[in-house]
């Protein structure tokens, strides 16, 4: 049951690579799984962008294959399916598995000095549950009437049988439910592992910030995924058994019935913490990477942890800012506005500490470092534009326009993705025993950050122009026609952004099998994971290490030639 035993290495292929209980294998499974889904979601994004810039013209290359009935043109129903599935896939099947599944599984035991997760079997179950969820979601694309068209937020009554027929939406709800269950299993495992299996000597304040980020994420997962799970159950019952949780009676009839706004409350009680579920691991990773590659201790470690804790607590009480136009009480709206502004304070403290960490450092601008610095840039853009949306009187106009799309893509998508890229370039040598190409990595970085900034900043302009999101064709309304040129700019930058990801795919695959062999500690950092041989032996540590130093002891004046020290060594007095 527990991860501090040594189990013999399995010999059969099935037990070793498929139904493995080894956290390292599961981490790689999550990584491949997530990357493949990111590719699928990315291709969907490209199709969405194609349609917006060229409404009604056939999609080149793949159009004829995917939309044979219309001769390659995306029809409005398929368009709605595309953005719904793009959102769902990116959040639940792309970013969550990569950031939390892969790097959570990889980093937590290795960084805290444990032989495995505390519940290895639950860990395996977590992966296969998310895989099943992915399969259900994928299957829903092929049922009659196709996948759901109700948006990734799945608001009733559009998502009930009032608005969507067919099994697509029901299967979507089942998939979200399963993925949620997987995240809860992972969360319970991560929390218990971090509490119980830290190596002797490793105080809470000796944990790398990556582990802290993952810890808070796990707490949010355990607390708030059940909320969406229950909300989905009620939705499934409304669709399948004809209950009326979310389906109201007509206002003219005088009867009451269900409440569609109830779903919005439940969804965002989960949905807002979900933003932090995705960003907290990235914050943790970035805080570590900045210290590692600035060769300087992380500035204000405890304040950083405190700020992440504050964000975790506050994340549950700000969700109302997603619902300013639903007609909530004025007082309630004002409270949510104030709370949302308060949550910006810990976020700002994180920025302050990151910038302070690299100040007067000795910066090694590796690809991982570039992506970590990139997070400061894109999260700065995304976070600051949140101010417009927290403020009710500006949000009323900007709500459900492209301004919102730009904002949440920069915060929860681009920042989380940059964190994931930084982590991939960083942990790759330990995971696969080979180095990724730095030249291709840097090219990938520049060809990502430049078009990405153009894509989402143009969306801010479109949104300020009043362009609503989830429109099949913006040239349909007179008001929007003069904004169409912005769609063209966004789309062309998006194509460049998409193409740049192929460099990453190529770099990843080539380096995985043909890259130069990595040394044990190529980045010269002191955390426990990098003190192990590469490849990491089956049960990680033959002897559980004893921790004597913090994770960020760089450039200590008494260290001599070496500017780093393993966590297992004592700092010179």
């Amino acid at each position: 049951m527990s991860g501090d035993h040594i189990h013999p290495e399995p010999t059969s292929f099935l037990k070793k690579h498929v139904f493995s209980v080894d956290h390292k294998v599961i981490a790689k499974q999550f990584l491949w799984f997530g990357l493949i889904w990111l590719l699928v979601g990315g291709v969907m994004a490209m199709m969405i962008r194609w349609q917006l810039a060229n409404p009604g013209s056939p999609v080149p290359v793949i159009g004829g294959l995917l939309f044979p009935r219309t001769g390659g043109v995306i029809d409005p129903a398929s368009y709605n399916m595309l953005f719904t599935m793009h959102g769902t896939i990116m959040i639940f099947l792309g970013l969550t598995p990569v950031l939390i599944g892969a790097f959570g599984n990889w980093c937590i035991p290795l960084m805290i000095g444990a032989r495995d997760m505390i519940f290895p079997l639950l860990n395996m179950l977590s992966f296969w549950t998310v895989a099943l969820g992915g399969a259900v979601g994928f299957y829903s694309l092929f049922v009659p009437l196709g996948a759901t068209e109700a948006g990734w937020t799945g608001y009733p009554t559009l998502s009930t049988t009032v608005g969507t027929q067919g099994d697509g939406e029901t299967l979507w709800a089942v998939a979200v439910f399963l993925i949620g269950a997987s995240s809860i299993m992972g969360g319970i495992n991560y929390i218990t592992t971090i509490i119980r299996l830290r190596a002797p000597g490793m105080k809470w304040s000796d944990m790398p910030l990556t582990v802290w980020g993952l810890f808070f994420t796990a707490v949010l997962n355990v607390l708030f995924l059940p909320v969406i799970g229950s909300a989905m159950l009620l939705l499934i019952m409304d669709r399948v058994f004809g209950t009326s949780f979310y389906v109201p009676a007509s206002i003219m009839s005088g009867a009451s019935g269900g409440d569609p706004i109830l779903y919005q409350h439940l969804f965002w009680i989960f949905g807002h913490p979900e933003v932090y579920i995705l960003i907290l691991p990235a914050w943790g990773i970035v805080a570590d990477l900045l210290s590692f590659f600035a060769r300087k201790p992380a500035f204000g470690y405890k304040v950083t942890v405190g700020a992440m804790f504050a964000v975790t607590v506050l994340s549950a009480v700000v969700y109302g800012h997603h619902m300013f136009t639903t007609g909530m009480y004025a007082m309630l709206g004002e409270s949510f506005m104030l709370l949302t502004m308060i949550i910006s304070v810990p976020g700002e403290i994180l920025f302050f500490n990151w910038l302070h960490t690299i100040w007067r450092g000795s910066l090694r601008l590796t690809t991982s470092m570039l992506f970590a610095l990139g997070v400061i840039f894109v999260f700065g853009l995304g976070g600051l534009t949140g101010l417009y949306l927290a403020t009710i009187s500006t949000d009323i106009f900007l709500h459900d326009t492209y301004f919102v799309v730009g904002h949440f893509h920069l915060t929860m998508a681009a920042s989380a993705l940059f964190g994931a890229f930084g982590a991939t370039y960083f942990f790759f040598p330990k995971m696969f025993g080979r180095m990724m190409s730095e030249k291709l990595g840097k090219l990938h970085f520049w060809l990502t950050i430049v078009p990405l900034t153009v894509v989402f900043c143009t969306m801010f302009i479109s949104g300020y122009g009043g362009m609503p999101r989830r429109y099949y064709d913006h040239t349909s309304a007179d008001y929007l026609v003069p904004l169409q040129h912005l769609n063209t700019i966004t789309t062309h930058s998006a194509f460049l952004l998409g193409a740049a990801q192929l460099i990453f795919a190529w770099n990843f695959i080539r380096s995985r099998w043909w890259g130069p062999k990595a040394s044990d500690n190529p980045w010269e950092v002191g955390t426990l994971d990098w003190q192990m041989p590469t490849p990491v032996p089956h049960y990680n540590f033959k002897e559980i290490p004893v921790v004597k130093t913090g994770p960020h002891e760089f450039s200590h004046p008494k260290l001599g030639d070496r500017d780093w020290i393993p966590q297992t060594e004592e700092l010179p007095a």
Partner: protein
Amino acid sequence: MTTLAMDTPREDPRSRANATLGMIFFIGSWSMAFGTLFLSFLILRERVGTWPPPGIVLPSFPMATVATLVLLGSSVAVHAAVKRGRADAGGFAGLWALGTVLGVAFAALQSWLWFDLLAAGSGPQAGTYESLFFGLTWVHAAHVVVALLALLWIQLGIRTGRYGAHRISTVQNTAMFWHFMDVVWVVLYLGFFVF
């Protein structure tokens, strides 16, 4: 602090504590799930002016009360069984069996409540009250079924000697989950039948 043996017949206190801690987080998480359902109950109930709505078929109050007492009895039996099991005292298997039988009896009574309503022409699609009653008890019942399977599994394990004082954490966790089911039911009972 590290044991190098595999499949130890006797679990060490450390891994026992680990298992308990994991179960506590699990139940904390599931409390949020049921809490969400109960919040929905309160909000929808608030929308319906008079509660229960006049003129509808209500589930049988006496039968639900009996079901509640049976389930409480089951919890007490399971609790006593775990105590005996931990102390390696007699009556472990017997009390656990009693708890399981009472659990099955609860499931039967719960089914009776449903079929009674369905026979009277009510059903989940009849209105807000019915949606809530059927929906929430279904979710609870699905968990009860899983818990009953676990209770049976432990029962078999006690027979074969797999579980006992030497391996008690799975037994304790199952009992904890069963008590949790009990608490959830009591909350539902209070919501639907008392207040």
